[in-house]
């Protein structure tokens, strides 16, 4: 590229910067600012002092850390053996493990939480059976442990997927040379294989921590209120938008999230990623011995059962008329679905609109930033990428609080309506929240497009702009579609920011509807029905997009291999 950048490119960058400034930087900065200032605007640490003087807040702070750390640990225990099996053994369970990797992600933890209580609670199905047979009661769903149990079950795929990719990228020569020098078995795994896959594990573990720390709906559904996210929510929604304690809690959440991300890269500082060399092959797989097979399939079956239990529970709940103190519901009905179709189809529609807008904006912004960053020398292009990516460390609740505070007093142009109660703000929150994922997808796909592809087009007479539309975007299509789908589907189950920003039920997306239903005993049935419908739609969407993507990538594969 001869010029540093063109005018339209600079204009585009400016528009994106403005969007990020208004809907990410300023709201988060506002939250931080409020936490550190008195009402007269002078800087202070007094709010932090009073925060930590409140027993409930101190307790919530420790509880949040505990839940985050324990969920990370529990997720690792679930994921590590599964990743190890797939990487090391010839194995017919590949499909089962793939399913395990996706099933929990299409259903947010709070949706299944109620059903899980009915299955694993003190008087849930499992304990009823155990009580009958062995006079035993397992306190799985008590207090914080209930949150850990459910969060781990839903978020362990982050570790599983990242770790599996990392393991598959290890060159078999790494392992073979260790064997050649005398290492084998567990020592080999501990000293060579796992350290090489550590970046994948760390990335996954950090994500689990982020997700759990950010989750406000699951603890609330489980009636656990003494954690940070819940406290921040209560403070702002019941005491008011001016209560500084809510902001302090928010700032602590942001700091903890950033620390988790920073920590995962800090552990990896100065280490090399173990990437597969061209022409290398990944780790050799072995046949399972009989005992190993029993162990492996047994573990998979157990995890699969656990993973499926919220889904099964949710389905049972959605068809049940009443369900308490019995192993499975005793009377079944379609009334819950009827209620949902009568009362809340608009919520599904809202979800579709918000997520469509968010995913569309995400890939637009993602493609633009990827192009500006990789193909121009526009000053500040790296900053755009950094800011957009930083959204990953901002809990949805904090973003929501930031919007409420920043935009209060602003009216929608030409109306008397307050801007914060305008439905589009929910879509913007989704956009910002999902942008990091769409951006990474776009950047990765543009990185795979060799620069000569574009130069050839320019050489043959296509201007800059024509080249972007005829060559760059079509070649990035796979990544753009993947980014859109990921953004859309994950936004469909987003709840933290939504909880803060929905001001009228008519503006609520489906995830908010499920949460509302689950608040009351009579609402559980319809809530579960709405949950089943949402999960089904998200699941079908995920499956369909995987199919489309695979068909697409097959076409390009051969040529990519030549480069």
């Amino acid at each position: 590229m001869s010029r540093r950048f063109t005018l339209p490119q600079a204009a585009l960058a400016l528009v994106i910067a403005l969007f990020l400034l208004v809907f990410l930087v300023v709201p988060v900065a506002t939250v931080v600012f409020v936490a550190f200032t008195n009402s007269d605007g002078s800087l202070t640490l007094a709010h932090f002092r009073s925060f930590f003087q409140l027993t409930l807040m101190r307790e919530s702070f420790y509880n949040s850390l505990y839940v985050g750390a324990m969920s990370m640990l529990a997720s690792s225990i679930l994921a590590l053996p599964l990743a190890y099996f797939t990487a090391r053994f010839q194995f017919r369970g590949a499909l089962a493990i793939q399913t395990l990797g996706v099933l929990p992600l299409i259903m947010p933890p709070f949706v299944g939480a109620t059903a899980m209580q009915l299955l694993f609670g003190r008087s849930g199905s499992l304990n009823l059976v155990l009580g009958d047979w062995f006079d035993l009661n397992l306190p799985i769903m008590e207090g914080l442990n209930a949150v850990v149990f459910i969060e781990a079950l839903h978020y362990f795929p982050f570790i599983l997927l990242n770790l599996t990719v990392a393991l598959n990228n290890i060159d078999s020569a790494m392992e073979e040379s260790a064997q050649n020098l005398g290492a084998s078995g567990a020592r080999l795994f501990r000293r060579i294989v796992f350290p090489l896959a550590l970046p994948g594990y760390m990335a996954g573990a950090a994500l689990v921590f982020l997700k759990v720390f950010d989750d406000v709906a699951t603890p609330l559904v489980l009636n656990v209120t003494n954690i940070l996210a819940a406290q921040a929510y209560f403070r702002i929604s019941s005491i008011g938008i001016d209560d500084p304690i809510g902001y302090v809690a928010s700032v602590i959440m942001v700091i903890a999230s950033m620390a988790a991300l920073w920590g995962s890269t800090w552990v990896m500082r100065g280490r090399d990623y173990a990437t597969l060399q061209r022409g290398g092959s990944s780790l050799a797989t072995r046949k399972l011995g009989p005992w190993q097979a029993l162990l492996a399939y047994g573990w998979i079956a157990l995890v699969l059962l656990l993973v499926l239990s919220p889904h099964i529970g949710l389905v049972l709940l959605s068809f049940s008329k009443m369900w308490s103190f019995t192993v499975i519901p005793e009377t079944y009905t379609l009334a819950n679905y009827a209620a949902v179709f009568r009362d809340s189809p608009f919520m599904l529609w809202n979800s579709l609109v918000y997520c469509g807008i968010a995913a569309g904006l995400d890939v637009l912004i993602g493609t633009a930033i990827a192009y500006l960053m990789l193909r121009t020398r526009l000053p500040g292009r790296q900053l755009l990428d950094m800011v957009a990516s930083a959204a990953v460390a901002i809990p949805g609740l904090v973003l929501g609080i930031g919007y409420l505070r920043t935009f209060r007093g602003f009216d929608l142009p030409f109306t008397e309506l307050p801007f914060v109660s305008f439905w589009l703000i929910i879509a913007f929150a989704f956009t910002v929240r999902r942008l990091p994922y769409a951006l990474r997808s776009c950047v990765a796909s543009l990185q795979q497009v060799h620069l000569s592809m574009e130069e050839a087009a320019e050489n043959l007479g296509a201007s800059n702009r024509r080249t972007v539309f005829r060559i760059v975007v079509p070649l990035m299509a796979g990544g753009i579609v993947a980014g859109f789908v990921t953004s859309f589907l994950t936004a469909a189950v987003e709840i933290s920011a939504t909880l803060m920003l929905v001001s009228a039920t008519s503006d609520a997306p489906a995830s908010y509807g499920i949460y509302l239903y689950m608040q009351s005993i009579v609402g559980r049935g319809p809530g579960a029905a709405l949950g089943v419908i949402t999960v089904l739609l998200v699941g079908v969407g995920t499956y369909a997009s995987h199919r489309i993507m695979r068909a697409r990538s097959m076409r390009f594969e051969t040529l990519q291999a030549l480069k």
Partner: protein
Amino acid sequence: MAKVKVEFQDIALAFGSTAVLRNISLAIEPGEFFALLGPSGSGKSTLLRVLAGFAQAKAGRVLVDGKDLADVPPWKRDIGMVFQNYALWPHMTVHDNVAFGLEERRLPRSEVRRKVAAALELVGLADLGARRPSQLSGGQQQRVALARTIAIEPKVLLLDEPLSNLDAKLRVHMRAELLALQRKLGVTTIFVTHDQEEALSISDRVAVLDAGIIQQVGTPIELFDHPANPFIANFVGTINLISGTLKAGPDAMQFESEALGSIALGSMPATAPGKAQIAFRPHVVTLADAAAPAGAGLIWIEGRIAAREFLGEFIRYTVKAGKAEIVADQAHYTGARSYTPGEAVRLGIQPQQIRVLAR
């Protein structure tokens, strides 16, 4: 197609503080098949990219047909470039790839179709228009890249290492085909290569680049027979280079070196006395038994065979002579005399085949 002249005038370019091209001046005649030859990092591809508009020279001018290209963006230059990795677009069929440049020129549909068909016909791929690039072999992909470029009837054709991704046999075949095509179209063509055999075998003239400087420009035979400096001598073909001092003897020039002692060069070189190098090709060296009579007209040096490589058409001997190692190629045919390592030999060199290079 009107044949155009390409001129580089004092082109300088740097990436950061690394100078890549230093004051390159070069004129390529209309219709010429011109090679830019050099080791990797010599700046040859960069020079091509300056001409195509993908790299911006810090100083100097590029003239095509007498017109300065400074303010012309790449897409308005009409300089067709075939990329080293072909850069075929995988999301388009072969036909669409070739049609691209014509469509960008807003040609009517029927015209596009006709020209695409003609271009594919020219490279022998008339039937493969509906395929995708990934369904073609390496050689076919290269032809598509070529067809895509010549379809727009460029003023100048640029080929960036066009043969480097092909296997050895196909490379030899394709280079003959490239030349034939160029002769048919008559388009001024510049091609970049690091392979001296490729450059010498098909180009009208060659410019050899090293460290961003043009070391020599000439026809392949000029470069081979009269290398301008030790770099060219070494880079183009194989050569024996010996450093020493040139002195005026009683009846001929004397070349004194630590390696070979003192040898008489005859009256040939017009070089001033002083530090110099002599250079001669391995195939002008005659090998003979140590005991054989020294024929007149040759410079004879005593030596001993150190190693040998059998290369089919000839055997390449490394001969230890004094402190020097001299490479000598002897034609091989059934029944030809061969020497074994350790054997004492005499080396005969024709004085008129020795080049003296100033140091």
